[in-house]
């Protein structure tokens, strides 16, 4: 069935099909539409979940962990300050290996207060042990809602799906909604031993001292790395059932012969591709790599995509104060690990929702080609 939906609404449709037993969420702009739609679905009976009206984001995720520890599928959603408020629980959920799915509407972090989209909220939590995917459009949002449970549950790792605030969460597109039968065929019922069980009592979420702690952490890391193959497996099955194909941790656009490549995240990518087409028409060999996932980080995929490039740029709506864009750091680490001697430039843009225009992107491609500062802030002339 096709419908005209916003990113938030499309995601809610995906969650309806994933059928979490428990939804615990607290409202925050621009996530609210997701929880409103889910509440309506629960009311109408199209979703047989229990919607729990928690009093904070900390409780939203704490409650979801309780549900997951009770052995059922759980969902929550948040944004920005809410994500930061629940930060303690992010680490708790990943350490406890609770495969919770959360939608995060990417939004700037205070101060100054700002409700518009940038990615500083989720990128600040890259170390929290959650798989992090970034959707580009409403269809991918819906599809990730379904795939995220498949991947989270197979890797016992919580999964955060990020949608650019307003630009994606509130923008309407035509979306193909799978039917329930197809969704059930794709997503198996949630089964886990990592649960409280009256027949087989457990002590859970325990302490582990120096003798054992590092082993738990190593296993957590290994499983996150293993998610790479589970993501591939889920996309193969997804394509078989729904006919839509996804390309793993990255999505390449005209990179095969590209000399200058822009690396992007999320909804800005469409404009970057259009700009690349325009420049191609002018004879420039440019391409775009979209990072669909930031955790696990697409190290191998990225290296493969840019290995023949003359220079690369990283466009991100994020800054790690006193350093550089965190995605840029991650990209450089991947390039360094592969001994690729390709120059790289960082373009910080879109903070607090500032528009990134077509001419900004043309400039970025030009600077990648002609050289720029290592770290560049779009809209700020500092030389």
């Amino acid at each position, binding site marked *: 069935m096709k419908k005209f939906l916003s990113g938030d609404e499309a995601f809610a449709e995906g969650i309806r099909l994933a059928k979490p*037993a*428990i939804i*615990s969420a607290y409202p925050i702009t621009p996530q609210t539409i997701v929880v409103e739609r889910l509440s309506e679905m629960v009311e109408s009976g199209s979703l047989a979940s*229990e919607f*729990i*009206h*928690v*009093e*904070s984001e*900390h*409780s*939203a995720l*704490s*409650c*979801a*962990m*309780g*549900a*997951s*520890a*009770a*052995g*059922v599928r*759980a969902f929550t959603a948040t944004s920005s300050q809410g994500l930061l408020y629940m930060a*303690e*629980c992010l680490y*708790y959920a990943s350490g406890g290996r609770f495969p919770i799915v959360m939608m995060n509407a990417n939004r700037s972090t205070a101060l100054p207060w700002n409700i518009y989209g940038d990615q500083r909220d989720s990128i600040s939590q890259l170390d929290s042990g959650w798989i992090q995917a970034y959707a580009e459009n409403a269809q991918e949002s819906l599809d990730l809602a379904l795939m995220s449970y498949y991947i989270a549950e197979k890797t016992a790792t919580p999964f955060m799906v990020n949608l650019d605030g307003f630009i994606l969460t509130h923008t309407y597109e035509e979306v193909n909604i799978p039917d329930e039968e197809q969704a059930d065929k794709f997503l198996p019922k949630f089964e886990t031993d990592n649960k*409280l*069980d*009256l027949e087989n*009592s*457990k*002590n*859970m*979420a*325990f*302490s*582990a*001292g120096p003798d*054992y702690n590092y082993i738990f952490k190593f296993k957590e890391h290994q499983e996150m790395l293993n998610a790479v193959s589970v993501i591939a497996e889920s996309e193969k099955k997804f394509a078989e059932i729904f006919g839509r194909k996804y390309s793993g941790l990255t999505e390449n656009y005209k990179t095969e012969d590209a000399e200058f490549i822009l690396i992007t995240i999320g909804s800005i990518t469409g404009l970057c591709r259009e700009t690349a087409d325009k420049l191609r028409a002018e004879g420039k060999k440019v391409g775009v790599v979209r990072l669909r996932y930031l955790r696990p980080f697409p190290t191998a995929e990225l290296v493969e995509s840019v290995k023949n490039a003359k220079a690369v740029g990283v466009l991100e709506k994020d800054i790690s104060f006193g350093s550089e864009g965190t995605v840029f750091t991650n990209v450089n680490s991947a390039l360094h690990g592969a001994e690729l001697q390709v120059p790289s430039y960082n373009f910080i843009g879109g903070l607090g929702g500032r528009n990134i225009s077509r001419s900004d992107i043309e400039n970025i491609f030009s600077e990648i080609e002609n050289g720029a500062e290592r770290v560049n802030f779009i809209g700020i002339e500092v030389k």
Partner: protein
Amino acid sequence: MSVTAKNLCRDEFFYGHKACAGCGGSLAVRNALKVLGKNAVAVLPAGCMSAVGFNFPQLCFANNAIISTFAGTASMLTGIEAGFRARGIKDFTAVGFAGDGGTADIGIQALSGAIDRDDNIIYICYDNEAYMNTGIQKSGLTPFGAKTTTTPTGKNIHGNIRPKKNMFEIVAAHDIPYAATATVGYMTDFLNKVEKASKIKGTKYIHVIAPCPTGWGIPVSDTIDSAREIVDCGLWYLAEYENGKFTLNHDPKEFTSVSDYLKKQSRFRHLTDEDIQMIIQSRDAKWEKIRRDWRK
């Protein structure tokens, strides 16, 4: 039938833990679980009882038990209760055991949320009147005058300058189905309140005084004596809130000496006669209200 030592379940669910000798909190947890039985699903936040009971591979609960975040006792209970129901499980009790700091300070928001939703859980606050696990720091339930490592005593300040938060009445103000106060000193009173709570649907809250010999500065053998004296001298009371009404369970004809109760504990040893007079006055004011407004 009321709970007695004789008919109390013989199983031990909290055993082999590393709590200090004479720990009142561990006694509250141990016996409450004996009332609730093997289908109790316990949530304990970061704090003394989780620190002493869950150190892999030494795991001291025979029933299902899990540590929550410090602030998340009630919210995790909510999730577990809803999750078990979603699995179609009916015969279980979701019970939380949080200390005074975990309840009255960092966990009060989540607790308030759970009561507001009327989630079907039992929340037991074992009150040892300070952050004991981290080394005796003042909490919102530390009584007036108590010396802690963050309310030291000197010429200017005689320990904690604020009275205990009134958790029992804060909880009751939510119009909770059932709330009660208790002490590990009068064990069968406490256990019968746990039993009563287990039969009531909705959110239940029990606030049990649980002396900490380490933090209170009493001999390890004196936990029960102190836990009785605090009621006998009127600095704590045994009461219930149910159907919108408060009931006083025990109305002492005559209080024992507040001074004697305080002087046995090194945390109060610095108090002057004036300090003690203030404590007595505030006790009397409280009891005047209790006797006037609550059912007996």
